[in-house]
């Protein structure tokens, strides 16, 4: 019984964390927050490609590392902890869509470039809620053309490839075929744009099926959950450190039981969220029968805890926690974005109920 990372996985975790600490720490995130750009820090993005952090799930045959979802989740958690900007998740998920359902030629054309970070990706898989196509598909396909308002899509403005879910599966869309309208987002570690398709030419991924869309969604949910777990832990750690030294009424505020007990509860919840994200990723790697359940448990728990932990970070820093100068809002806003991406906690609890109560 070993419910722990392997030595190789720990080395990967250390490498990602060390790189971010040295090259893209809180100061760089803050600078990035205050600068207008396309949302992709160029040097960091290049490094992410060079380090192989986009190649983890891409098969060896397509110049990837051929590792598992847990390895990928390790990177996601470190990115959540460091609030890393950039289209990493969308690019990874486009690769997953192609790996799961793409033709040999589609894979050959795109996977090596996605793995190297030379091609950036974005995905539009849901119309709110958490159901695979056809019920939850944001686009409608007819005669090889897609129509639909895809809502807000992460990094659509910089993407070279879009993967869109329609009623009969996944489609590859050239961003040039879409109307893309950028929006300012609260969380500035992302760029959002609304995407509209009006008879856009699209290539169907031939291996598509509702099951494949569900598999892709679940993998996306696990990676989002891992990011949220990272943010939740970082927000808690920073808050605990601050409350050890911030003095009011002549004592460190962390000595007051009202704060202490809540932080203890958050520690328990975040610890559970970390376990849940870890197990869910592993469950996909070993094709465990309960992997869908595990994915929804992870997304629900990590979403709830990131919301609570980053909210507590604001509250337990007092007035300073509400200022732009403080980091609290950076964590809070990122958590709020991913909390509602790929199904929120209520939707995943409903999914758990349907798996556990309706299947029999």
């Amino acid at each position, binding site marked *: 019984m070993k419910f722990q990372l392997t030595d190789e996985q720990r080395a990967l975790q250390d490498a990602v964390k060390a790189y971010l600490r040295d090259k893209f720490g809180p100061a760089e995130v803050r600078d990035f927050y205050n600068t207008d750009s396309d949302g992709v820090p160029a040097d960091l993005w290049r490094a992410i490609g060079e380090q192989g952090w986009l190649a983890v799930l891409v098969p060896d045959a397509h110049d990837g590392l051929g590792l598992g979802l847990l390895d990928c989740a390790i990177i996601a958690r470190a990115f959540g902890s460091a609030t890393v900007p950039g289209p990493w998740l969308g690019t990874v998920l486009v690769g997953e869509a192609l790996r799961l359902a793409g033709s040999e030629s589609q894979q050959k054309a795109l996977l090596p470039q996605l793995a190297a970070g030379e091609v950036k990706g974005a995905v539009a898989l849901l119309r709110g809620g958490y159901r695979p196509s056809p019920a939850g598909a944001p686009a409608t396909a007819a005669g090889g053309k897609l129509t639909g308002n895809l809502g807000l899509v992460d990094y659509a403005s910089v993407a070279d490839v879009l993967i869109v879910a329609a009623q009969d599966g996944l489609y590859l869309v050239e961003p040039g075929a879409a109307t893309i309208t950028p929006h300012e987002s609260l969380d500035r570690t992302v760029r959002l744009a609304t995407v509209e398709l009006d008879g856009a030419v699209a290539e169907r991924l031939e291996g598509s099926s509702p099951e494949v869309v569900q598999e892709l969604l679940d993998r996306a949910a696990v990676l989002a959950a891992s990011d949220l777990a990272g943010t939740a832990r970082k927000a808690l750690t920073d808050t*605990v450190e601050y409350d050890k030294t911030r003095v009011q009424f002549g004592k460190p505020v962390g000595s007051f039981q009202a704060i202490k007990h809540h932080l203890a*509860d958050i520690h328990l919840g975040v610890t559970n969220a970390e376990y849940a994200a870890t197990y869910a990723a592993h469950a996909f790697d070993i094709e465990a029968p309960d992997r869908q359940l595990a994915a929804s448990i992870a997304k629900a*728990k990590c979403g709830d805890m990131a919301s609570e932990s980053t909210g507590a970070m604001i509250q337990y820093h007092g007035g300073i926690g509400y200022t732009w100068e403080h980091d609290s809002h950076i964590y809070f806003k990122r958590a709020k974005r991913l909390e509602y991406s790929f199904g929120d906690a209520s939707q995943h609890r409903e999914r758990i*109920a349907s798996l556990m109560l309706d299947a029999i």
Partner: protein
Amino acid sequence: MDLRFSTEDEDFRAELVGWLEANLPPEMRERAWWVGKSDAEQFEIRREWEAGKAAAGFAGIQWPTEYGGRGGTPGMKAIYDEQMAKANAPRTVNPLGLAFLGPTVMAIGTEEQKREIIKPLLHTEVIWCQGFSEPGAGSDLAALQMKAEPQGDHYVLNGQKIWTTNAMHGDKIFVLARTSDPGGARHAGISMLLVDMHQEGVEVRPLKQMTGESEFGEVFFTDAVCPVEDVLGGEGNGWQTAMLLLSFERGSSAIGQYTEFRRQWDAVATLARQLDRDGAPASQDPVMRQQLASSLIELECLKYHSWHVLTQTSQGKDLGFEASMTKIMWSEAFRKVSDTYESLVGTAFQVADPSPGTSLEELTTMALWSRSCTIWGGSQQVQRTIVAERVLGLPR
């Protein structure tokens, strides 16, 4: 990451499952069979069954063979807890002895104490009670007042213990008492004494719990005696001995609790499919579905935590104050399942048999029992303070 047990551990599981199949009659696994039997009758049945289990070699799974244990691995202990819960086997009659006294005696007891205490404990020949809490010393254990005055070759004990599990069935009790005047130092002058309950100076009175059962009671000491050699851990070291004793819950992985509460959740889910709510099964009610899912999430997280604990203990690591996290996690998860059950059955929570063929007796008793689990062994509030100060490092 490898969530499988070793072959050796799995062999043990097969052996245990086989033994349970042959030696745990199906009716004993059903709550209905126990209903109507008196507390004393139930206790004797459980005691006899547990003695048979010990004789078959399924007791003290991780304890050394030289003292009557099985000498097994942490994995085997987890499997034992899991399978016993799965089989709905009778609960141990010696919970305090197994969880606390046994490990403490093996750690710091004299050779004679080890030989005298461990085997009879495992074979249920001696039922042990714990004498810690007093009317004025609950969460604040160091406020205890009980006195044990040294007089030649024995101590004379006077005072009262309360909320003592199995008080009515106990043969012996490990008691924290003041053997000398500490002069203001609350944690000094305390000793842990191993006292015979079958003597004139010890009087036991049952306390009725909110379930209606009397699993605990009060123990009064009036000039009771205890030989000086029956101190555990040395005179005056009682506080340290007690802290060591309480730390032994740390090895517990909570897999047994998970298995038991998960079975309870499954029963609640089944009930939700059967009960009607506005013309449809209650399991279709959106709010009920959220609540059932929420409690399942906490349960599954408890399972992951138990894997974590087992991983650490298998590698010989001490979990330290993480033990408090385990306690909070399992008792809160249990409460959450119970809350879900209560809101599912609504007013029927008040009655044992709301309709023909439906018995809520077992689930209702469990739900009430869950209210005690966030208190005993260190209340949730005490545990949170420990987590905040010892795990997170927040100032006192």
